[in-house]
Each structure stands twice: as structure tokens, then as C-alpha cells.
């Protein structure tokens, strides 16, 4: 099954809703996501902290159409809540990689609205 990284229909919907604020939304998302990815790395061994960050990151990436990123965050949130500790490092890395993958796509989208 082909994996969707960025849903273009979501982006066009957002552009319609946000109008002039659309570029700002993209900037905010990139900035916010960068912080969350770093926070995930820092909290690598703290399951509870990872769960909270993943929950929040899941919400915003879902809203911005980063389908695969949101799905990875959901998995991390789910696993962080498991009673038996599991190694979450691998998922954190996957999220890191996925963000690295979608980031240029958002930046490219952002450049269409260069002043």
C-alpha cells in the first residue's frame, strides 16, 4: 500500500479556510513541529512525556494533512501508555525521519506565497 505523507486535499482546504493567514499557518506548523521533534529526542526515555508530546503532535500534524506523521504519533502515544515498558526509541526515530521527509514539502508549499 502506497503511503501518503502529505494529503494535498487537506492543504487546499486549509488554504481556502485561512486565506491570507495560510503562509503563517505553515510557518507556525513547521516551527512548532521542529520544537516537538526536539522535545521527543530529549524525552527519549520518559514514556509519559513522550505520550503527551506525541498526543499534541498527532493533533497538529493531523490538522495540517501530514497523514503518516500523525499516524506515527498515534502509535507512539498508544505505546507510551502500555503498562509494560517497551522501547520507544525506534518510533521516535521514525517520527524524526518522517518529519525530515515532509518538511521540504511544506517549505515548498510555503514558497508559493513568497512576498
Amino acid at each position: 500500500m502506497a503511503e501518503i505523507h502529505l494529503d494535498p486535499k487537506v492543504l487546499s482546504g486549509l488554504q481556502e479556510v485561512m486565506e491570507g493567514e495560510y503562509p503563517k499557518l505553515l510557518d507556525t506548523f513547521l516551527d512548532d513541529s521542529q520544537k516537538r521533534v526536539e522535545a521527543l529526542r530529549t524525552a527519549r526515555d520518559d514514556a509519559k512525556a513522550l505520550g503527551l508530546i506525541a498526543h499534541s503532535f498527532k493533533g497538529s500534524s493531523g490538522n495540517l494533512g501530514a497523514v503518516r506523521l500523525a499516524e506515527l504519533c498515534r502509535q507512539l502515544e498508544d505505546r507510551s501508555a502500555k503498562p509494560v515498558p517497551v522501547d520507544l526509541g525506534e518510533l521516535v526515530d521514525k517520527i524524526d525521519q518522517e518529519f525530515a521527509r515532509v518538511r521540504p514539502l511544506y517549505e515548498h508549499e510555503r514558497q508559493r506565497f513568497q512576498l
Partner: protein
Amino acid sequence: MSVLAPVLEPLTILIAEDSAADLLLLSTIIRRQGHQVLTASNGEEAVEVFTRERPQLVLMDALMPVMDGFEAVRRIKQLAGEALVPIIFLTSLRESEALAQCLDAGGDDFLPKPYNPLILAAKINAMDRLRRLQATVLQQRDLIARHHDYLLHEQRVAKAVFDKVAHSGCINAAPNIRYLQSPYALFNGDLLLAAYTPSGDMHVLLGDFTGHGLPAAVGAMPLAEVFYGMTAKGYGLTQILREMNAKLKRILPVDMFCCATLLCLSAQRRVVEVWNGGMPEGYVHEITTGKRTPLMSRHLPLGVLLAEAFDDRTEVWPMAVGDRVFLLSDGVLDTADANEQLFGAGRLRQVFAANREPDHLFEEIELALAAFRGEVRDDVSMVEITLQPGQSLRATGQLYADSGQSSPLDWSVSFEFRAETLKRYNPLPYLLQLLLEIHGLREQSGALYSVMAELYSNALEHGVLGLDSRLKRDAQGFAEYYRLRNDRLARLNSGYVRVHVQVVPTEVGGKMTLRIEDSGAGFDVEQVLARPLDIDRLSGRGLSLVRQLSSDVRWSDGGRSVCVEFSWEALA
């Protein structure tokens, strides 16, 4: 803009969300929908902003740093008090337990991520409708509470005024009256009045206005005024009834009237005179025999008929000392049980039949009503008047405010009342008013009125109408006597009663001579006066009373003319 539902009225909406991108997205959507947006990035900030700005609706992320959404919602709901501030949780929580936690904390709805602007707008509108509904309900509740307080206040004031008017008579002071009336019976239209006439008779009225509440009570004022005013001036039942009926007919709307029993209890004459228009039947209870004579309703209520059609005929029943008159309102008979069955006259008669101790009758009726229904209604009125001897005569002093300086002291006047007048007019109150212009006589107004009333009714009944007082020796003859009286009076077309008053000053004060003549056949004065005073219970009383109360009584012209004197000493 096609995705945006129309907004009724812009709201101020607080969004609490820790993710900057989500916050920006959501605030943009909501601003586009025409609302004003306030933002907070954690629960604590949200509570602060709410306290400061009082937004009308809150969108709250569940999981946030510093203070989470659940705690923030609890605090905001507490701050909002009775007003509904709808809270929509922004959540990607999926476990039902977590969703239930949102509702437990006080959330009203959810909005799942990713956001759908259409759903969001619809939810905001739905919550706004709820918010307005709640605000309207609260406003109306407060309004109703205010109206209710106002109404209660009005009723309290009205009750205080009515109590003064309705109880200004002798209802509480007379030792021979017992009554039971629920405190707010007046607002159910029940009215109970009692007062002494100048000659010491007692007038009692138990009335029941149509309707409830204040409208039922307003008619009580004019009715009480007429009752007290005319009773004090010596008017009889028929004049009082006519005046009450005319007054109520004039002032009340057509669908309002007053069922009433009016009675005059005379300890001197040992009779009760009754008029019942529309009330349940009361009873005269003969204590020695246990017999109960019903006092049936024979007329339409007061305030229904025009004066020409009004029937003021009364019934007269003999009473012995200790006998009782019992009156009740329809609240007693109409008390209904759980199956809408009425208590009714039959059950009341059973209570009467079972009654051994007359003093416990009220309690027994109340017990029976309570057993029947489970509780006593608040519009139950009962009154019982016992005939007791020796009711002292009363001066009607409080009616007059002048000093007596202008008192007339040397004059005379004569009246002749002929057939058509005798039929329908009672001259006694007018004569009493005239005589009480003499200051020195006011002290004796009770005796004066009693003597005048006795002599006038002797002149009319035994003289003009030719009725034999010996008819009244037993209860049956008593009824026959009053039947004949009404009959003959109705057919009267000749005859007269003359009243002559002469007032002269004396060395110490003054003297009033009252002479009453009639057109009848006269009677053997010697023989009648020679009869032992108590030979017959019901008849001989009048003359002994007159002789007892006035200083000098003389008959002349074969019993057709009688003369009494009253004298007084000048005031210091």
C-alpha cells in the same frame, strides 16, 4: 466563505490550545465565522482569561501543560455559576473512558481533530442556542420569582387590611362564637363577619365569593362595610341584604357574586332569623332533643339579581338557651378524596350523628375530612354560635364624633307610617339616628333601640296585622306565626303605625317621651300584664323587656297606644 454557517450574533469565544498551529487554525476559522476570539495556551491561562473577559463559549484542549483542560473546565463551570457557558472539548482522545472524563469535568460537547470548519460552526451554533435557552430560562425564573414575591407581599398587605376590616366586629370577642377558618381562606373567597346590633342581637355572615385569590377577596371590603355599618345602626336583615345585594351587583363583574348566609341571633327573643343564598345548608341544633333543623338555601347568591327581583324573605326559628347554629362553607362538603369523590352532606350528617360532645364537633369534622382526603383543604370555614342569655346592651358611641354642644333639647316630631310603607320600610334605624342626635341619650342607645324595636313590632304585628302572640307557644305555632305575618303584611292595604317623639329639657338634663299608636283592635292590657312572665317560652318576653328597660310604660286607648319615657342627666 461557503463553509461558514450564518451567525446569529457574534460571540466571544475562548480557545485554550497548547499547539500553536492548531490554535492559529482554530482562531482563524472562528474569526471567519464572525466571532471574537480570545486565546490561552494552557489551562491556567484559560481560567485567568475567563475570569477577566467572561467569554460566552469555550473551546478547550484536553491535554495541556501546566493545568490540563479537565481541571480548567471544572473551575470555569464553577465561575460561570447558573449561566450556561458551553464548553467544547478539542480532542483527539479516542478511548471512551477519556471522552467520558471530559463530560464528567463539565464539558458539553467534543470536536475531534482534524478540525472540520462546517462541523465546528454547527456545533458553536447549537451550543449558542442552548446557552440562550438557559439564559431565557434563568431570566424567566427570576422574573417569576420576583412576581411571586410581589404577589405574596401584596397578599400579606391585603390580608392585614382585610383582617382589620373583617375582624373589626365581635367574631373574636364574643364568648358564644366558635369558628374555624384557614388563615388564607379569605383568598379563597370565604368571609366570616359578626357584630352586635344596638339591642344586643348578633348578626353573623358567612360568605363565599366566586373565584380565588385577590379577585375573590376584593368584594369582601364593601360587603363588610355594609354589614358593620348597617348592623351598628340598627338595620334588620332584610335592609342589610338588600343593600349588600345592590352594592355587589353594582361593583362586581357579572361572573362574580357571593353565596352567603346571614343570620340574626336574638338572645332576648330566643330566635334566629336566617337568609341563605347559595350556601350549603347550616343547622339549628336543639341541644335537649338533639334535633337538627336545616337552614336551606332558598335564594340566589348576593350580587346576582337586580334590586327589583331580589328576594329578602327570611326564615325564623325558635331557639332555647344552649342551642347552637352551625354554618359551613362548601370547602367542607367539596373536599375530594384521591378518586375525586366528594365528602358531601351525607358524610357530614354521619359526623353529626356520631357526635356526643357538641364542643368537639369541629375537631370531629376536621378529623373526618382529614381521614377522607389525607389533609384538610385551605378553604374550609365553619362557625358555630350558641344562644346564651344576658348579652349586655351596647351603646353605639363609637359612631359619633361630635361633642354634643349642638344637641337639640326642646322639640317634638310625629310620623305616620301607612300600609305601603309598613310593607317594605323599617323606620327604626332612622328613628334611632334621630334620637341619638340627643347627646344624653347615647349612653342608653341599646336600651332605647330595644324598647323601640319591641314596641314597633308589637304595634305592627299584634296591632296592625292582628297576630296573636300566643300562637308562638310552640315551635309549630312559631312557624305558623311567621308565615301568617309575611302573608298578612304582603296583603296589607290599610292601617298605620304612628310614632310621636317629644323632647323637653328638665332641671337636671332632659326627658324624651316616645308614643307609639297603631290602627289595630287593641288588647286587654290588665289581662296581658297579669300573666306570669315566663308562662310561655316564646311570646311574653317583649313586654317584660320593655318594662325592665324604660323608666315608665303606660298603655292607653284600649292597648292601641303605648308611651315610654327616657330621661338623662346633663353632662358635666
